[in-house]
């Protein structure tokens, strides 16, 4: 059971379509986002993830279908009355206002007293780590600080859903990794549903409770990070998330909940039906993640199966070494990764090796 299973539904999509003229941007989106969940919309640019986020915020009308937020149909609800707030990719900090005025902007119609509002602003700034920055001019802030202001400005309204449109893409790598962790902590602390749009699969895996992978206006798979990584539903998803080796295979037999395959260079293997997602009509291949393959040193015995191979390429990463290996005298090349631990030398190109693998790590795409 994952985190999301026992949560009430916050957002529900029912067959959502969106056309821009002739262009079919969203092609039948279905699915639910649970309350308190850190949810990511992941996909390459142009896949419709930002469009979908903007339909939740109310910045885009949908052509057909239903979007429900907290049980209410959003069809006739304008962006300014939806229980959502957004952190924009450009942060959209109002340049002619101070940090304080920016953060307090949403409280303009709030009936609370001036003092209470000022207190709320100070609390929100404290929450994002910008205590004492209130009087600063908004345009004098760094990228990271702007993002915190944008976060505080959205969170001060206590929305049911916080929408984040590629909020980390403008930051440098170190800052991005730092903010990823901060965002996760913040989300746990406030308990609000976060929906993140990103094209960075690593970011999505790190941060999310669940991820919807989108291609060409459709959700290709909606699952928790581990399922997405270990059991991708299609070859395209497998290719987009991390690295995966694809090995040509033939289906030998299929009966009940077992499928037997003959993978080139690996040999026959019996797979559970859960390792074979629904047919898409492609030529059958089996997928293997690099870390599920291991080189056997000296007289090590394989835990399950082993295959001979020859090293074709060595890519040294410091903590890891990637080897490209031809399997079992065939032209099938796989990439495998080995942790560089003491007593395990980096091998040279051309070395004959034994490769250990496990049938349970295979995924069959057909």
């Amino acid at each position: 059971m994952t985190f999301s299973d026992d949560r009430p539904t916050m957002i529900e999509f029912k067959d959502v379509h969106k056309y821009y003229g002739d262009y079919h941007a969203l092609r039948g989106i279905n699915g639910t986002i649970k309350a308190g969940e850190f949810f990511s919309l992941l996909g390459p640019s142009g896949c419709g993830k930002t469009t979908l986020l903007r339909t939740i915020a109310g910045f885009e009308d949908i052509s057909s279908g239903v979007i429900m937020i907290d049980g209410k149909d959003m069809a006739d609800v304008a962006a300014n009355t939806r229980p959502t707030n957004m952190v924009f990719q450009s942060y959209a900090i109002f340049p002619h206002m101070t940090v304080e005025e920016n953060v307090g902007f949403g409280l303009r119609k709030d009936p609370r007293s001036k003092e209470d509002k000022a207190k709320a602003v100070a609390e929100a700034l404290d929450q994002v780590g910008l205590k004492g920055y209130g009087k600063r001019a908004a345009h004098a802030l760094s990228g990271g600080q702007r993002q915190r202001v944008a976060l505080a400005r959205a969170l001060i309204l206590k929305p049911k859903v916080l929408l984040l449109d590629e909020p980390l893409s403008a930051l440098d790598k170190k800052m991005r990794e730092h903010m990823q962790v901060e965002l996760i902590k913040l989300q746990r602390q406030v308990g609000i549903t976060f929906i993140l749009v990103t094209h960075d699969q690593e970011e999505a895996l790190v941060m999310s409770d669940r991820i919807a992978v989108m291609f060409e206006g459709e959700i290709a798979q909606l699952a928790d990070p581990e399922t997405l990584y270990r059991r991708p539903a299609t070859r395209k998803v497998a290719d987009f998330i991390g690295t995966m080796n694809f090995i040509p295979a033939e289906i030998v037999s299929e009966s009940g909940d077992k499928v037997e395959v003959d993978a080139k260079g690996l040999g026959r293997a019996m797979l559970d039906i859960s390792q074979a997602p629904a047919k898409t009509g492609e030529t059958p291949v089996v997928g293997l993640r690099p870390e599920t393959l291991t080189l056997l040193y000296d007289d090590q015995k394989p835990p399950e199966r082993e295959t001979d191979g020859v090293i074709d390429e060595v890519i040294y990463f410091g903590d890891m070494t990637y080897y490209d290996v031809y399997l079992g005298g065939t032209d099938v090349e796989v990439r495998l990764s080995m942790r560089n631990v003491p007593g395990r030398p980096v091998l040279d190109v051309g070395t004959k090796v034994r490769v250990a693998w496990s049938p349970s790590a295979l995924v069959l795409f057909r």
Partner: protein
Amino acid sequence: MKKAPILQSYTLFYLLFLYGPILLLPIFAFNDSRVVAFPLQGFTAGWFAEMASDQNLRNAAKNSLMIALSVATISTVLGIFAARASVRYRFPGKAPLMGMIMLPLVLPEMIVAMALLVVLLSAGIPLSLFTVILGQVLICTPFAVAILTSAFQSLDRSLEEAAMDLGETAWSTFRLIVLPLVMPGIMASFLICFTISFDEFIIANFLGSGEPILSVYIFGQFRFPNKVPSMLALGTVLVCMSIILLGFAEYMRRRGIAKAGGKDSGGFL
């Protein structure tokens, strides 16, 4: 830095050609002689007194001020609508429509004035200061649109979405976010339209009803040698006003940019 004597002297000559005549204005405006010629005859402020006591001139100035303020206001408001529409929305026939709005920029003003005159006369609309305003708005609106389009273009669209997202309506978003951020553009548009209208001659001459308008009045007075010195005094006042106005416009523009945290790139001064 390398010296380029030819370019340097060309630049100097060019500037002298541009501004030399204007410098002569105050010199002769304070010269104690009805004849505009060297050598100078002595200092007097009498021409300014004569100018100030000219009732017709005061009427003309009042009318011109009224026309210029109206034209600047109307053109800038129309410019805001047009620029906003052209930057934000896509609609059928947008390109030809925007082209038509900008056309008076390159159309000979004489043609515009004559065409308007014919139309107004055949429609039985009596000429008045109002028809002058009408004609000048046509000329000034393209300038307003050009200036305001660039102001609206530099506005990040997500700022408006952010305001809506935070609970504001379309109108309050415009008031709280868009207007303050394009205000320097609005000021620039207003001042430029004001200046264009204030010294505009052709339309004022064609579509005016005979009520005095400053540019037409000055032109008329130059026929009388007696009047020339006081017209030079008036010219001096107008030049000073222009400099003050432009200086103010530039100050507002820079303040606007600094407030929005932008980088200063160009401007009038």
